[in-house]
């Protein structure tokens, strides 16, 4: 087959949604360095886009769109539909609001025209089930889910329905919006930027970068514009929307000629029936997002702690065989395979008060491990391995401070590491949380799979490291790494931002060794190693922040 014919065949499969990973690799090979092939690819994809434009349910004529948005009715206040063209209400609405309204009318229409995966409010179930994760369960307080389903904090959630019968849960969508669910609430996770609320109550906090998050309800679609709002849907479909901060737009995407309205902080509307064309104004009385969280019990979850090393040993030198305290270990500390002593004793050195702990966490104030200049690595077996071959979520944390030396010629690159390895395949797949001398946090998961944060952390400061491992029996494993510096407040629930995260890694490793390693000089301190099943087990803040 000629390259041209091969490219045509691959483009056919791409159009049909039938492109395998091998096909994609070959497609890249054909495109790489071949401008003619690239031009053909772009022609093909442009045609695909234009065909979707032409046949996306309604013919979209760009010249007609401005006319459409100008004609869209847009009342300035709830339940007062006034044609946008009528200038009499303009003094009451800022120019920005008018613009946002027009834009949102266009966006809702555009989305309705082009997003078959985002069904209209009339649809009952998602039309497309995507196995990829779209959200994370950050927090669950006294939750009972329908059909005895069990969800754990940190669990990744795919496109799917969620039925919370009782309790309070917090989700973060991958698009950035955080959502508090109060049971009983039924919703469908539709995508990383949208959800459908069938019944119950959601409080959404979407930072500016998450603007555009959409909540579909029986009565209306609500599009956030960088804000905080509450949506409640009753069993009969009655829908209430209250804006707590910022602005939202709401409208009915299946009816482009219907109104798209803007609602600001302190405004609320209610549809008494789902099909009611216009809502009525209601007072805003919903609690704020932070208020809901502060009412929830965000206390430490020591019950979900699997492994703990507080280094509660006598000050001074402690023989390795006697360094056998803590929880969840399969034996005492030992010299790591391959580590050299350079004439020094293998003992642990225990010191105290070497860290500056500004956080309301346990640890870091009493005895801790010192890694002097000649220290290389010590390891300790876990009682139970961290299994990447089974579905599970693990969190790991440690307190540390390191005075990073400058790199020297012919010496290993200075770095400190907390590593999980397999004793049966020591140099195989691992989960390495690494801080090299250039102070950009790294994940090193196997040869050729190193992920480096674009951010630099402060030198010689006490740091709180938190890692997250999302293990999957099938599909990609996900590893996350976050380094908090002295000036940063710890999050009481899992944050949206990590310094670095992995992509494209699948492993079946069983990691049963924990190593604390330092390369090339400098002194480092470690304390309070924790591994647990929840953010709150390894970031044990005493009070919600």
């Amino acid at each position, binding site marked *: 087959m000629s390259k041209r014919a091969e490219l*045509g065949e691959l483009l*056919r499969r*791409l*159009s*049909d*949604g039938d492109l395998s990973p091998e096909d*994609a690799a070959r*497609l*890249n090979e054909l*495109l*790489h360095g071949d*401008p003619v092939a*690239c031009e053909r*690819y*772009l*022609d*093909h*994809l*442009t*045609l*695909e*886009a*234009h065909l*979707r*434009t*032409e*046949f*996306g*349910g309604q013919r*979209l004529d*760009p010249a007609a*769109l*401005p006319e459409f*948005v100008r004609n869209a009715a847009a009342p300035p206040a709830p339940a007062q539909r006034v044609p946008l063209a009528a200038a009499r209400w303009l003094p009451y609405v800022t*120019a920005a609001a008018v*613009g*946002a309204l*027009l*834009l949102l009318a*266009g*966006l809702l229409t*555009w989305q309705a*025209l*082009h*997003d*078959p995966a*985002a069904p209209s409010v009339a649809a009952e179930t998602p039309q497309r089930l995507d196995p*990829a994760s779209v959200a994370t369960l950050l927090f669950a307080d006294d939750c009972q889910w329908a059909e005895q389903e069990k969800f754990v904090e940190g669990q990744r959630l795919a496109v799917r329905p969620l039925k919370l019968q009782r309790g309070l849960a917090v989700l973060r969508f*991958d*698009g950035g919006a955080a959502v508090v669910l109060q049971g009983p609430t039924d919703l469908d996770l539709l*995508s*990383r*930027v949208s959800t459908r609320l069938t019944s119950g109550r959601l409080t959404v906090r979407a930072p500016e970068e998450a*603007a*555009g998050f959409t909540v579909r309800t029986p009565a209306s679609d609500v599009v956030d*514009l*960088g804000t905080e709002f509450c949506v409640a849907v009753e069993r009969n479909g009655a829908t209430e929307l209250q804006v707590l901060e910022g602005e939202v737009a709401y409208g009915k995407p299946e009816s482009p000629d219907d109104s798209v309205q803007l609602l600001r902080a302190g405004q609320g509307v209610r549809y008494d029936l789902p099909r009611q064309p216009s809502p009525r104004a209601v007072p805003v009385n919903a609690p704020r997002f932070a208020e809901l969280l502060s009412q929830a019990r965000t206390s430490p979850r020591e019950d979900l702690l699997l492994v703990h090393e507080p280094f509660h040993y006598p000050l001074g030198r402690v023989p390795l065989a006697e360094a056998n305290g803590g929880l969840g270990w399969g034996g005492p500390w030992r010299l790591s395979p391959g580590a050299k002593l350079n004439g020094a004793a293998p003992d642990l050195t225990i010191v105290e008060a070497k860290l500056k702990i500004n956080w309301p966490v346990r640890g870091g104030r009493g005895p801790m491990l010192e890694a002097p200049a000649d220290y290389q690595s010590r390891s300790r077996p876990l009682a139970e391995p961290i299994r990447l071959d089974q579905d599970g979520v693990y969190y790991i944390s440690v307190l540390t401070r390191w005075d990073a030396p400058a790199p020297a010629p012919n010496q290993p690159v200075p770095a400190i590491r907390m590593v999980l390895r397999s004793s049966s395949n020591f140099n195989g797949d691992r989960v390495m949380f690494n801080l090299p001398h250039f102070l950009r946090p790294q994940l090193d998961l196997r040869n050729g799979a190193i992920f480096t944060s674009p951010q630099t952390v402060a030198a010689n400061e006490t740091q709180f490291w938190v890692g997250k491992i999302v293990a999957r029996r099938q*599909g990609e494993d996900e590893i996350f790494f976050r380094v908090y510096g002295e000036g940063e407040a710890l999050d009481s629930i899992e944050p949206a931002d990590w310094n670095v995260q992995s*992509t*494209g890694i699948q492993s079946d490793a069983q990691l049963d060794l924990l190593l604390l390693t330092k390369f090339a000089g400098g002194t480092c301190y470690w304390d309070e190693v924790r591994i647990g099943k929840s953010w709150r087990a390894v970031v044990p803040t005493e009070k919600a922040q």
Partner: protein
Amino acid sequence: MHETKDEFITHLTMAQPSLWAYVLSLLPDHVAAQDVLQETNLTLWRKAGNFQPGTSFIAWACQVAYFHVLSYRRRMRRDRLVLDDSVLAYLAERQAERAETLDNRLAALRGCLEKLPEASRRLLQERYAPGGSVKDLAESDGRSVAAVSQVLYRIREKLLSCIETAQAAGGMA
């Protein structure tokens, strides 16, 4: 913002088909591309003050879209990314250069669609309508998936050829 809101909205609205084509070319998954288009539109609106009237709106919009594409790719599973980074960078640059003329291609396509036999047009309609798929089409037609796929492939080749001819002739086919 130096121009009126209405002018900006007109720019944004007019740019939608080309912007959509730009994003889909770089992120050939229409659900992901739709998310990115929506994020891009909101950023364009928020950063409207950065747009300099008199410069190319679509060039600026493509720049913004590119950052959203990169950001989206960072969050996607690696095995769901079709394009490698190096190929992506070239395609992004090239498609941004072409963006000014993508409207012409859309206009040419419309002329070409009118010349298609009714059966072919109907097949495209069913395939590219929301929720349409080759598999569903094959089932409803009682044909094999491979057969429908090949028919669609031939129709698209015919359309591409027709668009090229129209472009070369400088007309709308």
